[in-house]
């Protein structure tokens, strides 16, 4: 059978969009198959209620008007895990979400759709800690740097602006004796403005597409809906928050070398033996999520970028060769949340304003890095998600079940009842800090298949994760650090949630480089099959948000694919 494309990329999320665009730049013909909807494209004017067309390959198809209609800023509409536009499920919202089994009442927070989980991500793009890569990964930090630089320039990454909540965070951190970082390669503890991929008002940026694409009036207006889907900008490709559907996807469309088919769930990777008897990828079988129709497609190269759960699930469902690390080694930064509630007088003293207004400004515009422990990230957003993150999720049960003793917080556990209402009455004067732990890889953690239960796309995944004692200590240290910053800033009451490890936001490293793939990110056991999403990360990076490193690796992987299989022979 003849090939249909040079390369098929599975998934148009944080990593897939990047590898696709980079390959298009090299002149290869690329097909991207994406399980979810496409928001902001004329071929799908009503992406959640009508099937629309089959594919798009033209930059002219993009439409900011459609995006504005789709992204409503409303939390249940956008972010309900069950029926939200950003959910792990098919575009058709009359259908149930796709099922996963997560231990202990947890959940995985991932999106299907062009843009993937960057649809609702917060746009934060720090680099990994050098000490978590050097002599740990099978490649060095120095090898990553040129790729970091390339991605940082394209996104682009800049320092986030401060409003009240950031001012208060800096005030507390500085008063507690910490100093501010001024480097991208962090080796010591300190705070800094968030390096993020959110265009600032007036920031100059060279949009690709010569001449045509000189916009004015773009950039973030600080209205606080990063997490509910940013649609602020004159065009899709100039939207302020740089989800991949606003940059890599449009830029790939401009090359004329790409076709993107949303609403296409890949259910099998096809392989055959080559002349040497080695297994190689030759294509995929994909299923239309509206009609259930399946299609077989062939290409020279297949790239898996379906995310940390679906990439191993697809490997297993395709019966690809056994490997003790497929699906194994899952890390998730074992998050936690520490919330400080302030009185007006304390705020007046700290920042000269009676309110923090956590719903205004970018959702996570300041951070504290602590190599060896992990990260503190300032967080604020609209009230429903805010209340659930700060008060609804706890591994220690309800607040009244726990004695905090001499710990630096006042309450631990889920806050409910009158106390919840009282704390939410103080929403305007609340500062939340989210914790990312530098958690360890453990081969017992990860994704397996439930061999008793299938959905229309194959056996469903079971996700398991147990934190280690070391992780627990690091995380407690971070919670103490966060509490100290809040207290020093003047917080009257501090609540530590103590999240369950089964809340998955930063999912990583279930198909680790060097173990499932070689150092070029090509599968060890299946030639011409590459991996370009968070699953290929070797570890949790020391705590930093994963997407930049995944995108740097995906850029490098595009080079590797071209050099090995397409470059003209010398």
């Amino acid at each position, binding site marked *: 059978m003849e090939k249909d494309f040079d390369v098929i990329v599975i998934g148009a999320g944080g990593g897939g969009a990047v590898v696709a665009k980079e390959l298009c730049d090299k002149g290869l013909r690329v097909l991207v198959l994406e399980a979810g909807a496409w928001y902001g494209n004329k071929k799908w004017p009503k992406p*959640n*209620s009508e099937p629309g067309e089959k594919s798009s390959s033209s930059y002219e198809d993009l439409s900011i008007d459609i995006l504005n209609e789709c992204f*409503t*800023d*409303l*939390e*249940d*509409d956008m972010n*309900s895990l*069950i*029926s*939200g536009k950003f959910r792990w499920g098919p575009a058709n*919202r*009359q259908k*149930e*979400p796709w*099922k996963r*089994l*997560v*231990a*202990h*009442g*947890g*959940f995985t927070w991932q999106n299907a759709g062009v843009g993937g989980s960057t649809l609702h991500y917060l746009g934060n793009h720090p680099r990994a800690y050098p000490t978590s890569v050097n002599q740990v990964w099978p490649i060095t930090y120095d090898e990553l740097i040129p790729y970091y630089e390339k991605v940082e320039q394209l996104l682009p990454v800049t320092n986030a602006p401060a409003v009240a909540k950031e001012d208060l965070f800096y005030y507390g951190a500085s008063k507690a004796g910490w100093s501010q970082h001024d480097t991208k390669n962090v080796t010591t503890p300190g705070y800094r403005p968030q390096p993020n991929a959110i265009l600032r008002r007036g920031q100059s940026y060279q949009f690709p597409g010569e001449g045509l694409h000189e916009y004015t009036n773009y950039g973030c207006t600080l*209205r606080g*809906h990063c997490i509910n889907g940013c649609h602020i900008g004159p065009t899709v490709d100039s939207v302020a928050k740089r989800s991949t559907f606003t940059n890599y996807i449009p830029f790939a469309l401009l090359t004329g070398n790409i076709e993107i088919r949303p609403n296409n769930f890949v259910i099998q990777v096809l392989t055959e033996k080559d002349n040497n008897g080695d297994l190689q990828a030759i294509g995929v079988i994909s299923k239309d999520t509206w009609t259930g129709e399946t299609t077989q497609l062939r290409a020279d190269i297949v790239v898996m970028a379906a995310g940390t759960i679906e990439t191993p699930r697809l490997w297993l469902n395709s019966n690809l060769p056994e490997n003790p690390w497929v699906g194994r080694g899952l890390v998730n930064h074992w998050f936690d949340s520490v919330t400080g509630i302030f009185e007006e007088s304390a705020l007046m003293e700290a920042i000269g304003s009676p309110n923090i207004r956590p*719903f205004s400004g970018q959702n996570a515009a300041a951070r504290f890095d602590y190599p060896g422990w992990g990260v503190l990230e300032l967080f604020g957003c*609209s*009230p*429903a*998600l*805010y*209340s*659930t993150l700060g*008060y*609804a*999720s706890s591994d220690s*049960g*309800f607040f*009244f*079940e726990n004695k905090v003793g001499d710990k630096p917080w006042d309450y631990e556990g*889920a806050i*409910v*009842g*009158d106390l*919840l*209402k*009282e704390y*939410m*009455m103080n*929403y*305007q004067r609340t500062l939340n800090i989210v914790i990312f732990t530098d958690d360890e890889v453990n081969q017992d953690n990860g994704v397996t298949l439930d061999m008793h239960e299938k959905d229309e796309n194959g056996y469903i995944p079971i996700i398991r994760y147990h934190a280690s004692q070391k992780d627990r200590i690091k995380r407690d240290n971070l919670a103490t650090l966060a509490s100290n910053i809040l207290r020093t800033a003047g917080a009257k009451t501090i609540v530590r949630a103590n999240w*369950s490890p089964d809340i998955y936001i930063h999912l990583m490293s279930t198909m680790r480089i060097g173990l499932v793939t070689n150092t070029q990110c090509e599968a060890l056991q299946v030639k011409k099959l590459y991996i370009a999403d968070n699953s290929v990360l070797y570890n949790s990076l020391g705590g930093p948000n994963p997407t930049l490193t995944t995108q740097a690796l995906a850029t490098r992987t595009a080079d590797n694919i071209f050099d090995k299989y397409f470059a003209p022979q010398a």
Partner: protein
Amino acid sequence: MESGNNNQDMLEEYTLKQTKATLSAFVDAIIPRSEELAKEYGEIQYFGALDLLVDEYLYITLNEYQPDLAEATVEMLNAAAQRLVSRVENKKPLNLSEGGLFASLAPSDRLLAIALLKKYQYSSSHLLYPYENIFYNVVDNLIRLTMIGYYSEWFGYGTTRLLQPNNRVLEFYPLSWNQIDYPGPTPPRQLAMIES
């Protein structure tokens, strides 16, 4: 045949009643009506999850996730209440009603029943049998969903709130936003005009 059908109907009605009563009791325990807060901070702080019909939100959301999940959840909450009572760990007298045992517990005891369930989440235990599979995914999510139902825009869908998500229209901003001084998305989303 006929009597069988009637039984079926009766049973269904009974179950429905219990479902409503139990989910209402749940959301009421998480976000109560508060006379105290109203006295101290103004009338608006009286209102709670029952006033914003969050039990309906819970019901439709659970069943959207998986058919009959709401009913199974109710059974599980009642089983937890049963265990609490049989261990004599409830602190306040029961207020028995046909809404089921969970709904008969005082709100603070409902929280104890939920806490009892949570404690057993890491060990496979007789306490949970035969609800382990449901429990596996639900209890913490119930608390989260209650808060989402209450503090998101959902109640503001007004007369369209029970429709498919694609067909809902925001008619007003929910009262919970006034309680917490959240101005809503800026500039305000277009609200639907309602004929009065």
